[in-house]
């Protein structure tokens, strides 16, 4: 039998799940959230929106296809990952695949987690854990590995995670006659890739950068972790940008910040949407899309000012999935049209945005 360190996941309500360690041998804490996707652990782990969180995968078998190689580029843009490193603070799975098999695999998931100092635990009834989180809501938790020191619970939502994950300097990607300002609230690299692929110049700026000082054709507000109320600086800059009437598009956190700039408010969902199978409907149409999502907060439709309207709605729980201005070229999606990981069915929203650039 394989000898592995024992480990335990302890939730803030005292519930414990006994398992075994397969990642970094150290303890960790954060907000425990679950994702029901069946593929895409390299993408999820490097998604900045998971900053401060311990990820539970409901699909039991993880690590099957290993981890693709690092592909460092300057300015930073990876083909294989969504950021430069792992953002989750821990990983919880049912069954870890000790051997992996894929032509692109360069190392095992365990080795990668160890090199990035991320603890991980397996042999956990992730279904029972997920049901617990579903019933009680997302909660704080910690993974303690046998022989390692205890750690305190940590609540990432009290921190400005957007500031933490955003780039610190301005950098430029791609080339084209049009310039898009990409406000990095913790951007996934595939948003950059999706824009560059469409022949525009992307100027990636920090979350609180006053981009109104530069000449641009459109603004793109990225995804990002945590509570949108922490990103007031971005909201102020968006309000300024709105006055120019130039196109604005947002994704996930970008949807929430655009809504806040419009005057609406957001709230925390009981356990969030984290999966590849969230159904959304474009309001006023029969068009529906399967979307990839990762968010814990949502826009409160009832607080949208009259000149704004919901653009998409979640078919399962009727929560907001996007907004748009009734007359101006401003729109955003709560889901991830850039996918990675997940279905790519809404990537056309990038085309819609590019088409608006004059």
């Amino acid at each position, binding site marked *: *039998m394989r000898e592995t360190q024992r480990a335990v996941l302890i939730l803030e309500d005292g519930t414990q799940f006994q398992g075994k360690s397969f990642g970094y041998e150290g303890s960790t804490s954060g907000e425990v959230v679950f994702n029901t996707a069946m*593929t895409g652990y390299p*993408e999820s782990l490097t998604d900045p929106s998971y900053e401060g969180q311990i990820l539970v995968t409901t699909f039991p078998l993880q690590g099957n296809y290993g981890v693709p190689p690092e592909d460092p580029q300057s300015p930073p843009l990876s083909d294989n990952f969504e950021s430069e490193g792992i953002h989750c603070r821990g990983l919880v799975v*049912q069954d870890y695949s000790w051997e992996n098999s894929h*032509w692109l695999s360069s190392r095992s998931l365990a080795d990668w987690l160890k090199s990035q100092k991320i603890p991980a635990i397996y042999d956990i009834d992730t279904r029972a854990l997920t049901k617990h989180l579903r019933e009680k809501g997302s909660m704080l938790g910690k993974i303690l590995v046998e022989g390692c020191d205890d750690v305190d619970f940590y609540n990432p939502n009290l921190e400005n995670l957007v500031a933490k994950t955003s780039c610190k300097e301005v950098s430029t990607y791609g080339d084209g006659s049009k310039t898009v300002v990409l406000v990095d609230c913790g951007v996934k690299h595939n948003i950059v890739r999706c824009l560059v692929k469409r022949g525009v110049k992307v100027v990636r700026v920090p979350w609180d950068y006053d981009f109104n000082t530069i000449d641009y054709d459109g603004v793109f507000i990225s995804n990002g972790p945590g509570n949108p109320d922490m990103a007031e600086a971005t909201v102020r800059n968006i309000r300024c940008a709105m006055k120019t009437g130039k196109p604005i598009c947002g994704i996930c956190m970008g949807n929430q910040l655009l809504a806040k700039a419009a005057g609406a408010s957001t709230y925390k969902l009981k356990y969030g949407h984290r999966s590849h199978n969230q*159904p959304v409907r474009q309001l006023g149409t029969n068009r529906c899309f399967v979307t990839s999502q990762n968010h814990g907060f949502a826009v409160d439709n009832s607080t949208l000012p009259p000149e704004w309207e919901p653009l998409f709605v979640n078919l*399962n729980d009727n929560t907001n999935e996007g907004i748009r201005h009734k007359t101006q070229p401003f729109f955003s999606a709560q889901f991830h049209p850039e996918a990675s990981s997940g279905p790519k069915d809404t990537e056309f929203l990038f085309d819609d945005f590019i088409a608006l650039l004059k």
Partner: protein
Amino acid sequence: MEETNKIQKVLLLGSGALKIGEAGEFDYSGSQALKAMKEEGITTVLINPNIATVQTSEGFADKIYFLPVTPYFVTKVIEKERPDGILLAFGGQTALNCGVELYRSGILEKHGVKVLGTPVQSIIDTEDRELFVKRLDEIDIKTIKSQAVESVDQALEVANRLGYPVIVRAAYALGGLGSGFCDNDTQLKALTEKALAFSPQVLVEKSLKGWKEVEYEVVRDRYDNCITVCNMENFDPLGIHTGESIVVAPSQTLSNDDYHYLRSLAIKIIRHIGIVGECNVQYAYDPKSMDYRVIEVNARLSRSSALASKATGYPLAFVAAKLGLGYGLFDLKNSVTKTTSAFFEPALDYVVVKIPRWDLGKFHGVNREIGSSMKSVGEVMAIGRTFEEAIQKGLRMIGQGMHGFVANRPINIDNIDHALADPTDKRIFVISQAMQQGYSVDHIHELTKIDRWFLFKLRHIIDTASELGQYNNVNDIPQPLMRLAKQQGFSDFQIARAINPQYAASSPEDAIWDIRQQRIAMGIIPVVKQIDTLGAEYPAHTNYLYLTYNGTENDINYLHDHRSIVVLGSGAYRIGSSVEFDWCSVNALMTVKARGWRSVMINFNPETVSTDYDMCDRLYFDELTFERVMDILDLEQPHGTILSVGGQIPNNLATRLDARGVNILGTSAQSIDNAEDRHKFSAMLDQLGIDQPRWQELTSLEDINAFIDKVGFPVLVRPSYVLSGAAMNVCSNNDELVRFLRLAANVSKQHPVVVTEFIQNAKEIEMDAVANNGKIIAYAISEHIEFAGVHSGDATIQFPPQKLYVETMRRIKKVSQRIAAALNITGPFNIQYLAKNNDIKVIECNLRASRSFPFVSKVLKINFIDLATQAMLGEDVQAPSKNAFDLDYVGIKASQFSFSRLQGADPVLGVDMASTGEVGCIGENTSEALLKAMLSVSNRIPDKSKGILLSTGTPKQKADMLDAAHALHNHGFRLYATGGTHAFLTDNGIPAVRVYWPSQPDMQPQALDLLHRHEIDLVVNIPKNLTSTELSNGYKIRRAAVDLNIPLLTNARLASAFINAFTTIPIDKIEIKSWEQYH
């Protein structure tokens, strides 16, 4: 929804008899479609001659026609019923092909019948290979470039241009019929000729052996909204038909990019083709890049879609039917959560493994290698939270004596490398043996091209088994190792065998129980999990369940109120046990529920209706082993358990469950044992003074000879241990006997042989009945058309009997009542009799429902299972007043064979069952019912421009066939006959052309040539007896008939009856009457 309002009556085409490539999955699809229509208040008309299905039961369709699903009969039904719409996607290739023909001939348009769902043109685009490639080229989707050819010469030219190996496929064929790989001109010639017999068009293409095979199930509504409900990955790489492959869902070796790349392509394809409903896209995927080819698209519900439905909990057929009415996916709700949308893609939190079930051992001469053509007869689906757990469960479920991946009886392998590279039905066990002999994962990968990931997982099982082997005593096994073994799907028996093989062999029951007690003491018990489609994100409102050791918490709160009744299902479809037991199981569940109990089902067959989670209160999609049934009973603590409706698998558990205190409802385990145990049963019959054929269990050749001296040849020989070939054989002389016992069986003290006198020219009679406390409350006596010697599962059966003496019937009834009383039967039972003159002998007795229960129940219109279940629930059941003498009509049950799939198999009938399915048709008299039934099982009325080949066996058989030969001649059929038959016909004034056997190559005309030139449209080839020399004589003729798709009859009595029917009843005189109209 304006389209829905116009549709008030729809016609649904079923798939007919179960055959290889088209089995129970279409009972599931059709039943779901009927439910969907019913929910909309639409009147439904069903055409399906398969009387044993659930869909042809009361309460599913409004009108049922037990008629062949062919353009002629469907047209007649359309003319009579005038439906507004037709559903073509729910009855497999049979329904689809029939629908395309009706569309092309303008019948649908003429009668204003709208095709619901996918338009016929889209179906044609996917079925015609050339059109298909062209359509996908339009959107730059890569297909396997193939060339359509219409002759053997063309095929050779193309193959030589592409370079071998090539694959050959027949267009418009189900399950890869007539398909295969060719490495050279000779193989190509043979295969192409055969394929051209089934299809005017044959495709030759370059082979991509070794690529991964991946499938997506895609759904689209008329608003262009698309979802992929499930993807699946074949364990076996490309080259093995997906129906022959172990399949895993969801895919395990694809990265996110791989998964969504193929998913996006699938959606692009379904949109371009214009599917409305469901379709399946199959890919070949390069294991070393993101290169792909689309293999095929099935524009209908398929075996894969049934599997995907069961694997995910997403009711594909139901949703597809609703989409056909014009609904959008967003209009429909998720049937599991009841609150969330049906527009979504299921998230699984478990892994599913499908394993095919083959029955190749039943056939003489069949090629055991598996490849691009389907040979399996059924499948199982196993659910686990590790791959190891799922596959080990699955390997037990296939039910061929295997205990999982390890701890099996070793199989004989001449050359492991060969057996790995050229797979047979045993390949998974070859991998096990190779690993145990030290083959590395890389080495096995090189030989098999199976992805290393799967092999690594299998390796874990081997490692754990060898670690267990280091302990000799159950008490010494450390708790973590015991738990790991259970998490990897080890059964208690596997653990017992790993630690102490001798004890496990000598006292299996005790060994298993020791392990069970010890692990329970260690706190190692399985937990119950729900399949909820959303990975626990939303609560489920259905109880679709499985058990796993990879978890700590049950999803179900057990009330332990003893209000559950557990019904054990029938497991994998296989020769001898198929959809008829699903009908029985479903009907038992319905009665249980109607009588106020909680209905609980255990079954693992994804092709069934009984595994639909809306058929019962709780469905355990899990094993039917003693261990797992006990696990479930421990959790459920039911009032009682029903074993008698699921065929032999549950029946076999009776004694063991009883020994552990399980409350078995109905007939007691003791009685079941008394009927199953040959010695006890025989002694009981002797005591009751009931006659039976003489038999003896013998352990040496001398004893066998002594017995045969008494009873004479022929004898029926049944070895208890079979080396190869079929388990039973009739031996007509000493040479036969010696050869059979030397080659096929092993006679010893450990392996006795049962020898039974074989009575020739006797009638075989079935008694299906229900008793309550030893008293028969309902019964049906039916007679075989063939004389005894044809297995009852292959025989043509008529009910009510038309040619039995009243005296015989009365005796059978009396004897049956005495047996029922002696065994104190409560519930269903079946007794088989031989009758000669008025003497009757009991052949066997099963204290469970039999294969013919749905047939007699539906013909008589008395639901025997409903009555039996009521009796087993302890209710006071009244005997129905109606009986078979009141019927003004006749039912005929005929068998469907799948020999065309089973390359090399001799299509002759014997004492071992060979049919894969059956139909049941009703008519005014025997001939009319028989004609409908025979036309439903791939026979056709011969074309008068062609001839009929007669080769009719012994003088007695020739004489039996004389009237039929006269009738053929009088009706203007041209007759061809081989030597003896020709002489006999000539002597009797019937002109016939003499033809020659392949063993007379110098003579002309050769029978085989005529067959190959399609100058013959019916072959009647009656072997004189069942000796191997006689069998080999006609083998080439029979095989050629099957391979060239020419109807073949091998039984004189059945051939006479069929010829009599089609020469006396013109096809347009066949009455088009629904089931309801017979009363």
